[in-house]
């Protein structure tokens, strides 16, 4: 079994990261009743004897002593990280695995990437190496950040290059929060564009998520809870609700609930690698199956259940509803329209008491309404994990490599161009050492090239699938 290290960068990255660790702990507590440190837990946590001073405290087997997250926390302001260290999760984090500063990146990618990048490069390397050393077999880095700000966007993507150089065989999965149209950070288009180039070049897999989608989902949950439409209640100990586990009438901290959704995504993504099942799917299989060409590594995710399931033994019809939901826009974490675009590949990661016949029945049912690229007509990757998420009998995570991401990128480009043409705020970037106009133009070309790839694929949509002439053999 392998281990993964989470690198949470910036305010957004750390808030999501914090939610993730909370949920991960609760999930493992629910699954691992005996308190034995097993391989599943070791994927994200170290077992440490806290009485030992210094580094030697790792315990590889036996009873759980003290769990430490395999995480590196990076922020150029102290606020969020301090809050985490004073909160209920403070013991989960190794205080040596933090990098903080006080001045912040001022919502400036260039400051995050170039200034703090060079300033903290050595420290970053040191912390990453340390966390890798603690792993028996490190498979994956999960980077969590937002695109629109300065630290998450700039320093977060600086990290990618470091990871690629230092750990070339370890996968880099990036969870990126894209800004919505009404983002109040004026420079977010610049930051996002510059970050995109890094994601194009140095990430193995990117899960783009936008705040708007998360917000819509939370609003719907709120609506349903308040209108009493959910029948009984939303399960109180379900991980879908807010991290404190209690239900709030009106979400005072909507970000909390929104972050929970992203945290759930990461949990479900890794469940088949951590827990047993009849058809396992390891993290290296995600990239293998869902990335047909190196540049096209952006995956749209949708997650169910998001709302409620109250029954334990659900007859197949309700199970089928879960599959339908995964293909409905309500459950997507990105504003996009996969059904009217072209699928390059699709992964269905199921948890709980779901069998192969359920999977196949639903694939057959949903297939006709989806368009797959001609060379991948049966482009489904599936996994069955026996362990359901806490509070539910089953769940489904769908990851789609679909040309529907194109509009998101085109919008990003448009917003960028509107600012760039006026040269608004450009001097804040250009005055940073190492930043020139070419950074911007290169970033734009990179994104344009990506958009063009999707364009070309889109032209093949609706074309009849023809079998190519085969090799003929002389008998």
């Amino acid at each position, binding site marked *: 079994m392998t281990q993964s290290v989470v690198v949470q960068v910036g305010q957004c990255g750390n808030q999501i990261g914090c939610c993730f660790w909370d949920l991960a702990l609760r999930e493992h507590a629910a699954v691992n009743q005996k308190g034995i440190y097993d391989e599943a837990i070791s994927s994200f946590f170290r077992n440490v004897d806290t009485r030992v001073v210094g580094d030697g405290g790792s315990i590889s087997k036996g009873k759980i002593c003290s769990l430490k997250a395999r995480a590196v926390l990076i922020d150029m302001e102290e606020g969020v990280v301090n809050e985490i260290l004073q909160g209920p999760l403070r013991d989960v984090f190794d205080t040596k695995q933090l990098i903080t500063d006080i001045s912040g990146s001022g919502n400036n990618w260039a400051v995050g990437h170039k200034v703090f990048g060079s300033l903290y490069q050595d420290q970053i390397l040191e912390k990453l190496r340390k966390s890798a050393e603690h792993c028996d077999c490190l498979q994956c880095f999960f980077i969590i950040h937002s695109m629109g700000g300065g630290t998450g966007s700039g320093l977060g993507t600086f990290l990618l290059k470091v990871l690629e150089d230092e750990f070339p065989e370890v996968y880099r999965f990036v969870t990126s929060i894209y800004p919505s149209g009404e983002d109040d950070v004026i420079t977010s288009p610049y930051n996002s564009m510059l970050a995109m180039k890094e994601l194009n070049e140095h990430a193995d897999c990117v899960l783009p998520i936008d705040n708007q989608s998360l917000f819509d989902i939370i609003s719907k949950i709120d609506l349903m809870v308040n209108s009493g439409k959910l029948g009984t209640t939303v399960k109180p100990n379900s991980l879908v609700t807010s991290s404190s586990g209690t239900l709030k009438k009106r979400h005072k901290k909507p970000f909390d609930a929104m972050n929970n959704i992203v945290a759930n995504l990461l949990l479900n993504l890794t469940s088949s690698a951590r827990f047993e099942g009849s058809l396992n799917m390891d993290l290296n299989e995600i990239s293998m199956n869902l990335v047909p060409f190196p540049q096209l590594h952006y995956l749209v995710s949708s997650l169910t259940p998001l709302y409620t399931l109250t029954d334990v033994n659900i007859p197949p019809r309700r199970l089928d509803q879960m599959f339908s939901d995964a293909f409905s826009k309500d459950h997507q974490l990105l504003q996009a329209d996969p059904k009217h675009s072209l699928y390059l590949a699709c992964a269905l990661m199921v948890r709980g008491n779901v069998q192969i016949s359920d999977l*196949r029945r639903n694939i057959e049912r949903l297939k006709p309404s989806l368009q797959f690229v001609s060379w991948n007509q049966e482009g489904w990757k599936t996994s069955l994990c026996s362990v359901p998420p806490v509070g539910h009998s089953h769940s489904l995570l769908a990851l789609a490599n679909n040309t529907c991401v194109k509009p998101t990128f085109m919008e990003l480009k448009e917003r960028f161009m509107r600012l760039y043409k006026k040269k608004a705020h450009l001097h804040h970037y250009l005055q940073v050492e190492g930043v020139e106009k070419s950074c911007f133009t290169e970033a734009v070309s990179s994104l344009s090239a990506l958009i063009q790839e999707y364009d070309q694929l889109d032209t093949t949509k609706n074309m009849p699938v023809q079998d190519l002439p085969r090799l003929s053999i002389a008998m």
Partner: protein
Amino acid sequence: MEHAHSFSVVFRGNTPSLWLSMSIVTVQLGQCGNQIGFEVFDALLSDSHSSQGLCSKRENEAYQASCKERFFSEEENGVPIARAVLVDMEPKVINQTLSKAAQSGQWKYGQHACFCQKQGSGNNWAYGYSVHGPRHEESIMSLIRKEVEKCDSFSGFFIIMSMAGGTGSGLGAFVTQNLQDQYPNSLKMNHIIWPYGTGEVIVQNYNSILTLSHLYRSSDALLVHENDAVHKICAKLMNIKQISFSDINQVLAHQLGSVFQPTYSAESSFHYRRNPLGDLMEHLVPHPEFKMLSVRNIPHMSENSLAYSTFTWAGLLKHLRQMLISNAKMEEEVGSDCVAQASLELLVSSDPSTSASQSAGITGIDWHVRPPLSGLPPLGKMSLNKDLHFNTSVANLVILRGKDVQSADVEGFKDPALYTSWLKPVNAFNVWKTQRAFSKYEKSAVLVSNSQFLVKPLDTIVGKAWNMFASKAYIHQYTKFGIEEEDFLDSFTSLEQVVASYCNL
């Protein structure tokens, strides 16, 4: 052709069994291979212990002893240990497999029979073949060697693997090649799981063609089970509502068990056949160009239905024969329990051409297809409907187990029209009959066939892989680990050759 083995008289403990069976070493690779391997050993031993053998006590004992020698070695406290090596590149499945076996209380795997790593092959054939293979070659081959050394008399290897993933397929191909190098005089049969048509793994077609082309060079026979076919059996014949991989593997294990459990030879009813693999190869693979074998088993039904059903050999064999020539994956769909017998009798006794319209509607046997009259082209070939194509065989083996088995008449399988012209039926067809019943079925018949059964599935996989290859999708994942475009082209060439050879039978 006589076996080139020396017959030795072997005594085991208090059982004066003459000519005990030679042993088979099973290599289970990847998640699929290990999950199936468990079910196979479990099925073999359960059947062996079953009290419904419908034969004499002495007969039963001989059967048990033979089965044990073939597949198990004995430990001190009497718990049989499977003659198996378990290989996987990550630990979850092997751990599960080991504990399930131990929990059965009836048998277990050897303590040191496993090879495991921490990180899987990522569904990447190239990774399994080029990275894991060489890296772990010594350890894996050493484990296998230890297992072979435990055998007094060694028949050969049975390698269980899937084609779709990364370990079973890639590492499986590598290991098979190694076995060919290190044990050139031993037989190797690869049991290959053909994935579902609508993907389990997106790159399954690539992995499949790479596996098949490599195995064609290094293996002696490829015994194929298709997930789609077994799934249909579970759905239509066993009436299982929510089909799990466990269900599928159990049906599969049942089919394998009915092939591999001890049988008598046609010539002699004094002792069970000694060399299962040798005999299978001898009868079924007369020419190295034709290595693809498939299994058809009849009857298949849920336990409830079994209690109410009786069959005649004539009925079973008629169905089995029609399954062969019409390329059916399974027998007729059987309705409710009490209809079971009636519907089969009806189909057996009435004129096939009238029941054709009824049966063609159910996904089962197509009674329209008939063998060609000698000298005339087959009827099917003239028809526009591809499904009417008549299935020509290279060789067939029918194994019958159960009550009154000596009365079973297999003449229908000796029709020269069933076979390709370069083999006479007397060489192409064989039957093994055994009184001792198998696994609760009073009568059961299994057909192992080297025929055009697999041409269409193979052709389909090659076609899909070719389409994907033309777009170069995913190729970078393979070239990263040393499998280049030329390697793909080689595989395509080999397999087109295989398809062509079978089509021209």
